[in-house]
């Protein structure tokens, strides 16, 4: 069951909200946990057992760490075990098939192996559970003795499938006490509808253009078509990720929880460094807190810092998927970040704004080529097409795509900047009268919801682009 499915929108969510609001405050966590387990089991009836085992394992691991905090050595061993157990489960599901397939390439006789699909949300709830264990160890959070509260943090349905990755220290107080008001529910609904529109209208439409380009042999793609394809993907992935994040944040707010913003208009950045302060902020923050800083961060020598940065970015690439193109993408991002920090960052600051934006856009789009390519060979062929070595610089296909989708690109480009929010704000603030403003706002969002639902009905299948 996905957020943008009819069964979720018109069955699961209304029932969950009604039961939650009717329930007394002391039962609300239990109600939401039950809804979350049901939500997960609907999509993963086999792996819901693994989710429950993982949650219980981490609950008791956290209590064990808490019991040993006065003995630093024992506490360190306890947290190491907890982190290792989580990483082992994650690494097994995500990477063991990839690892064996790579070894098989080198062997005369292949090692046969059994494959298992990756449990939905494994990457999300594993990172969150690690966050809890480390926060308890560091003293940044208290041990959660209530198993329902802990399970709710780990398995909460708004964010278990596709994030954001919520740190335990951000949730700790909210699990005990939060306000559930009609105003917050309304704000949550608005945010959810915004995210739904991003996914159903923009991301899906852009995805169709990208699929058309990706289906063409790379040798027959002109530079124009290749850049259109890449540009379409760049916008698609932004609206996918940010749309799902908005839906998650909106749902959470309906239930009284506040998640931090996960995307801050990343495409208005003027450097890759700035981009990564605006893109998937929760994931980048997680890697900084729990990988980069424990490795030493930027303390120590320059070479050590570069090493730390590259390790983080290789892991970030691998987190997105088990294939060489994701690893190369991670290395690519890491190298540019190192360069901006130690080589040309200061020079970049002195360049005119338009030049910086072109620099940023070109480097980002090139990076996305590695991200969307099914193989390294394909990415190199695609990049070659982008410089005109495929089917020349301009062709009819590229012209046709531009002519038939210019309005989509205009709308998407505007929606990717603060312009869209400002425009919506102008419409909603059109009158000084509160009732009129409320009516306009409600009408606007109902309209957006209905249009999104119409797009969903005509698109029979609407997955999230990635399976985390």
């Amino acid at each position: 069951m996905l957020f943008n499915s009819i069964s979720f929108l018109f069955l699961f969510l209304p029932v969950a909200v009604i039961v939650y609001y009717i329930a007394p405050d002391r039962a609300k966590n239990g109600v939401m946990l039950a809804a979350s387990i049901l939500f997960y089991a609907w999509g993963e009836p086999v792996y819901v057992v693994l989710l429950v085992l993982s949650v219980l394992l981490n609950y008791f691991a956290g209590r064990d760490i808490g019991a040993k905090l006065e003995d630093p050595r024992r506490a360190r061993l306890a947290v190491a075990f907890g982190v290792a157990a989580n990483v082992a489960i994650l690494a097994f599901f995500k990477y063991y098939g990839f690892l064996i397939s790579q070894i098989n390439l080198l062997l005369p006789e292949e090692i046969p192996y059994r494959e298992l699909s990756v449990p939905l949300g494994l990457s999300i709830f594993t990172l969150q559970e690690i966050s809890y264990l480390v926060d308890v160890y560091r003293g940044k959070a208290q041990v959660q003795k209530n198993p329902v509260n802990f399970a709710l943090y780990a398995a909460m349905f708004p964010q278990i499938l596709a994030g954001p990755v919520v740190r335990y220290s951000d949730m700790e107080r909210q699990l005990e006490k939060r306000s559930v008001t009609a105003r917050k529910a309304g704000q949550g609904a608005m945010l959810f509808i915004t995210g739904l529109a991003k996914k159903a209208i923009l991301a899906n439409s852009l995805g169709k253009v990208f699929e058309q380009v990706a289906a063409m042999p790379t040798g027959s793609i002109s530079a124009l078509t290749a850049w259109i394809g890449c540009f379409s993907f760049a916008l698609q992935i932004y609206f996918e990720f940010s749309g799902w994040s908005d839906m998650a944040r909106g749902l959470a707010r309906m239930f009284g929880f506040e998640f931090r913003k996960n995307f801050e208009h990343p495409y208005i950045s003027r450097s890759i460094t700035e981009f990564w302060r605006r893109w998937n902020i929760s994931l980048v923050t997680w890697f900084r807190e729990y990988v980069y800083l424990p490795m030493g961060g930027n303390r120590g020598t320059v070479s050590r810092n570069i090493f730390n940065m590259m390790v983080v970015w290789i892991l970030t690439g691998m987190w997105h998927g088990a294939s060489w193109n994701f690893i190369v993408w991670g290395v690519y991002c890491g190298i540019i970040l190192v360069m901006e920090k130690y080589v040309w960052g200061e020079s970049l600051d002195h360049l005119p704004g338009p030049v910086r934006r072109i620099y940023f856009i070109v480097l980002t789009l090139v990076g996305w080529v590695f991200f969307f390519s099914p193989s390294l060979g394909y990415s190199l062929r695609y990049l070659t097409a982008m410089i005109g070595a495929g089917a020349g610089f301009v062709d009819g296909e590229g012209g046709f795509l531009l002519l038939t989708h210019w309005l989509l690109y205009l709308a998407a480009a505007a929606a990717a900047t603060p312009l869209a929010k400002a425009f919506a704000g102008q419409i909603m603030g059109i009158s000084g009268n509160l009732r009129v403003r409320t009516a306009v706002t409600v009408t606007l969002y109902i309209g957006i919801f209905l249009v999104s639902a119409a797009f969903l009905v005509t698109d029979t299948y609407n997955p999230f682009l990635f399976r985390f």
Partner: protein
Amino acid sequence: MRDGRPGIAQILKYILALLAAAYIVFLLIFAGGSTRAFEDVKADMSPVLEASDMVERDGQALKRSFGLNSRDYSGVMYYSASSALSAEEVLVIRVNSTDQIDRVLEAVKARILQRTGEYGDYLPEQTELLEHAVQSVRGKYIFFAVSADAARYRTAFDESL
């Protein structure tokens, strides 16, 4: 931890870690996929399916029936009844990546709904077959059968992996 003895939390975390590992092994054995080539799986299953009244279908039929493009997957085997009055069909697909699994399962679900609507009350025995459709995901292999012999076809599928 008191008096050097492990606390209850420590014991339980080890037990749960073992349980998680055991569950993963259980899944590997009973729900794990196979790296066997699709052609080998097809060769093992074909005699069983050829002995039925079903006919092997091509990519166009797959597109019409499920909305799936056969070239998107590394292997497709689709059999369906020769008569439109029968809901009997068997589909085996090997996906290229696990990201494609949900797409196929959604297509199967939509197919069941569509055919249930078509047969409705006119052919209740076919509707009952659809209600008892068998599905299985084993790694990158997806199996779907609507048939009175669905369990037998499922066994053939499991044994072929």
